[in-house]
């Protein structure tokens, strides 16, 4: 019934609205998406490099290359529980595809991530490195994988939270756990041999490791890429299954 043009405009208008409502202005939102991982990078640098004296070269660059993509996933999933509740007034009134709402949240965080890539480039130069040509195909590929994965996760979380309103608390605990189980503040090579396979049970691991290798070394491991893609499809399928089961009840519980 809806035309392609309408879908496109629905997504742009809702993304713009989301940005305005969440951050009051797009400039403020951008600063937030850059300042937040930078602050964390600073904290981890002090804790692990200065105090714990981790044996690693270019640790700051290492942190930043992993924290920025994580920021996208983390922000989207943590804000997901509230997004249907925050849009209850339009859900109760108009019949439109509700999954567009989580999609716009994820797209918005993706835009912020894209805009923060120049900061990563800045740090590359500080450490006498340069962006690589492989970014031209590597970034779109990883973007796609992460977009599907984050959208699937956001759809899952936002749908469930409408029915179980304390799911939000569970998610904020879970996301902290996942963060420390993902090789972001430590390299996967530091994980003991017998536990290393376990690291890759975490769907975020191949993705974040791929991003970091691409940013710092310009390399892309096809195996990690394939694994990340498989995980993202699992998230998408799970999210859609739950959403399809629950979406027609959304207006009832709101």
């Amino acid at each position, binding site marked *: *019934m*809806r*035309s392609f*043009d*309408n879908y496109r*405009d*629905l997504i*742009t*208008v*809702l993304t713009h*609205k989301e940005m*305005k*409502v969440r951050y*009051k202005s797009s400039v403020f939102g951008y600063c937030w998406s850059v300042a937040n991982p930078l602050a964390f990078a600073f904290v981890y640098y002090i804790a692990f490099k200065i105090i714990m004296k981790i044996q690693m070269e270019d640790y700051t660059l290492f942190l930043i290359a992993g924290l920025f993509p994580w920021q996208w996933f983390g922000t989207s999933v943590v804000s997901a529980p509230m997004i249907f509740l925050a849009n209850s*007034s*339009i*859900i*109760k*009134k*108009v*019949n*439109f595809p509700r999954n567009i709402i989580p999609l716009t949240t994820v797209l918005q965080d993706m835009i912020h991530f894209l805009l923060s890539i120049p900061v990563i480039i800045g740090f590359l130069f500080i450490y006498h490195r340069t962006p690589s040509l492989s970014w031209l195909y590597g970034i779109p590929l990883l973007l796609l994988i992460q977009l599907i994965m984050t959208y699937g996760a956001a759809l899952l979380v936002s749908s469930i939270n*409408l*029915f*179980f*309103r*304390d*799911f939000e608390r*569970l998610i904020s605990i879970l996301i902290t756990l996942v963060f420390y189980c993902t090789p972001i503040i430590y390299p996967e090579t530091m994980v003991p041999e017998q536990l290393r396979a376990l690291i890759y049970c975490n769907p975020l691991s191949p993705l974040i490791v791929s991003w970091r290798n691409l940013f710092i070394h310009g390399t892309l491991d096809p195996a990690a890429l394939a694994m990340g893609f498989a995980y993202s499809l699992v998230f998408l399928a799970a999210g859609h299954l739950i959403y399809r089961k629950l979406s*027609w009840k959304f*207006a*009832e*519980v709101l």
Partner: protein
Amino acid sequence: MNNEQVIIFDAVSKSYPLYHHITGGFKNFLFHFPRAVSQMKNHQYEALHEISFQVCRGETFGIIGKNGAGKSTALGLIAGVLKPSKGTISVKGRVSALLELGSGFNAELTGRENIVLNGVLLGLTRVEVMHKMEEIIEFSGLGQFIDQPLRTYSTGMMMRLGFSVVSSLDPEILLIDEVFAVGDMEFQKKCMDKLESFKKGGVTIVYVSHGMQTILQTCDRVIWIENHRVRMIGSAQEVVSSYVDAGL
């Protein structure tokens, strides 16, 4: 008016499980698990019971009844945001709804941004909304307030914006849930004139109100819902007089 039926309710029932057991969270649900499960299975709140009616294209159809009788649920079913538990519903055409005040709007966005948001939600493209923008602002009479965030609006101003948006975006089926009362006399008259022109233009209108005078003035036929069931369907004159006689 022709006889094409655009809204058909066929023995429609709508019941809700008692959602408070789960919206209280996992913790609540698990602690009261047996009771919660049995109550969700056996105690359903039935908002509508086997309702049947048809509305033809271009007709103005009134819905009356006491608070909590199920009128708003019926509107939600027509709008397609709710699904019936039993029975079938068929609605042909784009539905525009003017429900509770401020619904469909976002308080942080300006009037202008809300117009665009509502337009695309209703299925138009941004360009189409932009073409209508001046007309909508003109009709609303909001002047410079159109660029202020909605949280600064009074209820009357919100109603003005809501009606202006819905009425300017070529509705095919228009749902109105008693909102005119907050507008001033001048704007109420403007709304009534607009409704009149819609009726001439073949727009189907479903109108919920407690104001029997307006129902009599605007509606062709009326359904009276009492206790979640159809009490009476007929011409506006007929139904309203029995409703008034029943002393409700």
